[in-house]
């Protein structure tokens, strides 16, 4: 579905991605793990064309999106939905208008049809009847759920999640994890999740890839990752300060 081939990216003198290779399978949830500030979000932004790599290719259904102009890139982006870390809801709009935004932009539908879809997506994330609220009236977990409703409004085939459970309490973390699992299954989505929350990783991932020092150092099924002998993976999963990952 998505092939990331030898992606390099530097910001000034700081090398963030140093030859990332990764295949993301269709209809599965791939979780990319790694340290905070290790380039996971940068990689995610490359997948949807928010950043251009210095070198390398990103193929989405065979099309190299790094070479596309804005118009063609926008066509590809319609296949995607994305849930941002803090949800990135438009705070000048109501919840209903937020979820309706991509529909009003791109779908030729009547207002009644749009309202119906908005209600359906909000129901899917367990938030029926909040259309008239403003994002500032919602809790962190609710904002993320509305963000997910907006991300799936256009029935995309791929949804990207940027640290979906960061900053949530354990109960809400589990609720969001379950929501990701259900949404992936019900809408037959290809999901890419970046996270460093160990419990969530094994809960939601069909495949897990570890990004370390700008490269994918291990990837496989959750069982393969659990059994990995790679010292970086072992240290990351155990949360030990002893090992190849330098704390300071």
């Amino acid at each position, binding site marked *: 579905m998505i092939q990331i081939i030898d992606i390099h990216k530097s910001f000034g003198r700081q090398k963030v991605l140093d030859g990332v290779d990764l295949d993301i399978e269709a209809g599965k949830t791939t979780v990319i793990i790694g340290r905070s500030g290790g380039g996971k979000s940068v990689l995610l*932004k490359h997948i*949807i*064309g*928010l950043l251009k790599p210095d070198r390398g290719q990103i193929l989405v259904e065979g099309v190299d999106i790094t070479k596309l102009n*804005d118009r063609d890139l*926008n*066509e590809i*982006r*319609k296949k*995607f*939905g*994305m849930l*941002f*870390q*803090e949800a*990135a*809801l*438009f*705070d000048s709009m109501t919840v209903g208008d937020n979820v309706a*935004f*991509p529909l009003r*932009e*791109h779908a030729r539908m009547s207002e009644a049809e749009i309202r119906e879809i908005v209600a359906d997506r909000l129901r899917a994330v367990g938030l029926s009847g909040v259309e008239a609220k403003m994002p500032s009236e919602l809790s962190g977990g609710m904002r993320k759920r509305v963000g997910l409703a907006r991300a799936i409004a256009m029935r995309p085939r791929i949804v990207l999640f940027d640290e979906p459970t960061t900053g949530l309490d354990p109960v809400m973390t589990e609720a969001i994890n379950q929501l990701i699992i259900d949404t992936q299954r019900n809408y037959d989505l290809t999901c890419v999740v970046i996270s460093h929350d160990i419990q969530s990783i094994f809960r939601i991932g069909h495949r897990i890839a570890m990004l370390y020092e700008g490269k994918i150092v291990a990837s496989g099924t959750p069982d393969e990752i659990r059994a990995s002998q790679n010292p970086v993976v072992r240290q990351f999963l155990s949360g030990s300060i002893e090992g190849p990952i330098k704390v300071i």
Partner: protein
Amino acid sequence: MNFVLGAVDYVGRAVLHSVEEAGRIFQLFLSVLAWLVRPPLRLRPIFKQMEFVGVRSIFVVVLTGTFTGMVLALQTYHGFRMFSAESMVGATVALSMTRELGPVLTALMVTARAGSAMAAELGTMRVTEQIDALYVMAANPVKYLIVPRMVASVVMLPFLTIVSDFVGVVGGYFVGVHLLRINSGIFMKNITKIVELDDIFNGLIKAAFFGLILSLIGCYKGFNTTGGAEGVGRATTEAVVLASVMILISDYFLTALMF
């Protein structure tokens, strides 16, 4: 020697940075023009911004315009009295307001009110990833956020300037005729005799140009914000300072070209 090299290095970097920034602002301007003519043109966000930039600035523009006209009448009266030219107070106030003070003061007030808000709003949207969200949903932020703000500013600044010109002259009339006892007929006659329609129109062209500057700089600074809440604060301050300075500098050149 090191000190001299250091100073040259500093100046060089500052000049390069300024030239680069000017280039980026111009690039944004071209991008706005391109998105302005690309359909569909959505009127709702433009009207919303016109209300914010224009209607909600009326009070502050009336206040500054009135007192500027009043103080101008007071100052010129004391000066002109020495040459027994008190009758020219009205014309001087009207000419100053329409040519210079109306457009410039209006633009500075709107910069402080709306230009700063544009930088802060867009800056907050940038640091909270709302601008990235627009890109992800295949909606261009220049079309969606910047075009309405610039169109609204360019359209509304001349209207606000008309208001400022009018209340400035009324303020001048009040001080000149009611407080300083200048003959009302002479006050008004000299205005109509000396102030020409071109003076008013050129002032309005200036105002539209200032609207372009304040919105372009406000949006540019906000759109390119980095560094969280502190970055939003910095972008807002820089937008107000840069836009105000550019308004005053461009005023000189526009005046030299027009009058």
